[in-house]
């Protein structure tokens, strides 16, 4: 049991950290895989990336063309983008600060120094001149924070909410990534599936498991269903579910997020990849992604609902006095 507000902060701390990291990974992979590509290919790739990050409509509002420069700027630092990497780190830090008393000092320090380091740099210049350095720095810092998190944080309810947040976020983005790659399957070369693997830092693990396979179906199977690879959708869901089970046990009943998540997980666990590919996989992935979103909503309803009453208080009065009789 903990304060709803703290639980919610930890949940979002997890989500924002994850979001910052995969956004950077995807920028990195896309940027480098495009160095030798044609312009039309480039625009398609950047648009895909925006779609995976669910930032396309936000980006279009800026009116800029989907070029490397503009997308990088938008995803990394644009103030107009509330999901930009720098905004995610700022919000992760804000959330950490509001639970400063519940998290290890080292975790706070690693996140705070990450935030400060990011603020000391002129990110616009970094992006323009040597984006690779910036990508590396963000990725490394994210991993440092993750490492400190898992090395120092007690496995209490607080940890559970961070973990649930991270895994749900991770599963959602992976679903979107697969859906978009699959949608463009026709003109996607294996080189682009490789990029998908890389952005999940899964290329090596995939090669090890599938021994030089070039079959997109196997990539999909790996990223969606692998029970051992920590960024697969299935793996993420199973871990989120395990933490939800422990939280739910304190109620002595099966909670709604447990039921919802169990259903999705079972659907994947007992699925045959051929079956999935035979049906409309893209549609299926979209559905799974939106079901996961429902899980997150129901976590909020179950555990943070009380803190959702945080609308500002407004005076109800004054009632009128002494206006004339009618």
């Amino acid at each position, binding site marked *: 049991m903990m304060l709803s507000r703290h639980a919610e902060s930890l949940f979002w701390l997890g989500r924002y950290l994850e979001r910052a990291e995969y956004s950077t990974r995807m920028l990195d992979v896309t940027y480098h895989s495009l160095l030798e590509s044609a312009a039309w290919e480039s625009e398609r790739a950047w648009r895909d990336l925006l779609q995976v990050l669910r930032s396309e409509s936000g980006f279009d509002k800026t009116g800029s063309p989907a070029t490397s420069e503009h997308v990088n700027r938008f995803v990394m630092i644009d103030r107009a983008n509330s999901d930009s990497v720098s905004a995610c780190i700022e919000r992760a830090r804000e959330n950490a600060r509001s639970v400063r008393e519940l998290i290890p000092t080292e975790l706070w320090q690693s996140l705070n120094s990450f935030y400060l380091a990011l603020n000391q740099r002129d990110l616009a210049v970094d992006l323009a001149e040597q984006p690779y350095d910036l990508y590396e720095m963000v990725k490394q810092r994210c991993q440092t924070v993750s490492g400190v998190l898992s090395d120092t944080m007690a496995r209490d309810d607080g940890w559970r909410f961070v973990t649930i947040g991270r895994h749900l976020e991770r599963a959602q983005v992976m679903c979107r990534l697969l859906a978009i790659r699959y949608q463009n399957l026709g003109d996607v070369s294996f080189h682009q599936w490789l990029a998908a693997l890389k952005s999940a830092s899964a290329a090596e693990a995939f090669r090890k498991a599938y021994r030089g396979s070039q079959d997109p179906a196997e990539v999909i199977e790996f990223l969606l269903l692998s029970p051992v690879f920590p960024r697969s959708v299935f793996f993420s869901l199973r871990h989120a579910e395990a933490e939800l089970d422990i939280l739910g046990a304190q109620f002595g009943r099966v909670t709604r997020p447990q039921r919802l998540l169990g259903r999705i997980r079972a659907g994947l666990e007992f699925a045959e990849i051929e079956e999935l590919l035979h049906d409309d996989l893209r549609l299926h992935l979209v559905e799974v992604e939106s079901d996961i979103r429902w899980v997150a909503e129901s976590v909020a309803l179950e555990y943070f609902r009380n803190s959702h009453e945080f609308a500002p208080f407004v005076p*109800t009065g004054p009632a009128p006095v002494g206006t004339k009789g009618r």
Partner: protein
Amino acid sequence: MRFDIRYRTTFTYDGLVRESQNELRACPATDDRQQLIGYRVMTNPSSRVSSSVDYWGTRVDAFGIRAPHLSLEVVAEAAVETRQAPMVTTAPRLDALTDEAFVDSHWEYLQPSAHTHWGEAVSAAASRQRDYLGTDVVSLVLALHRLAGASITYTPGSTYIGVDVEAVLDEGEGVCQDFAHLAVALCRSVEIPARYVSGYFFAADDATGVDADTDMVDVQTHAWFEAAIPGFGWLALDPTNQREVGLRHVKIGHGRDYDDVPPLRGTVAGTAVHALDASVEIRRVGSIGPHWQIAQQQQQ
């Protein structure tokens, strides 16, 4: 005179609101001019009402509604019997106002407050009356009462709470609480202790105070003031319709100004109020004189 009063306020919101917490000050006081016979508060959605008496002696009913709701209705029903105020039989002189014990015991009612903060104009107007009238306190109070009434034209909806008295005087328009605040400020500026009164008034028309020819009126809460007369007590006057407070006035409570006796105040989490409907229904019922006398005897 016996009245049944039904105070009712309904808030309607644009969307769901939660955690409404409120304080109601609608219960008629019991004093030498009136006797409360019965009182109850109901809310919809329903709530547990917790009652207490505040610093000023006014009954406060506190209630909260935590669950989401789209509207809130507050109803207070009171039965009350009024009687004529005692006549002022003393004629203290102005120097009685500076008596140390008198000043000390009325200190709060001599200071400016948020809504009675007077400036040059109010102070000058009051002093002129004093200089003109001589030394009789009661005459001066009555003169200031008339001055307040003559300085403002009753204009429904012309002000909102928070306008200071100088601005009201300058504009020359106001509603009953402006009359009351102005009268209070005029008195205090010449060192006559005065207090703001919140209450109900049975009349066909608030502006004139003319008695209704029916036994039921639909009005709003009303406001007037009381001035402390050395050797006598509080003299209650209704500056809005220029009369002494009488049988048709029912007092809720008093304070330094409106802020000490607001009929309803509170907070809610969510959107702002979309619509507010407030009414006071007063029914004049057959006098139950004996009841009143019994109550009086029991008190003694």
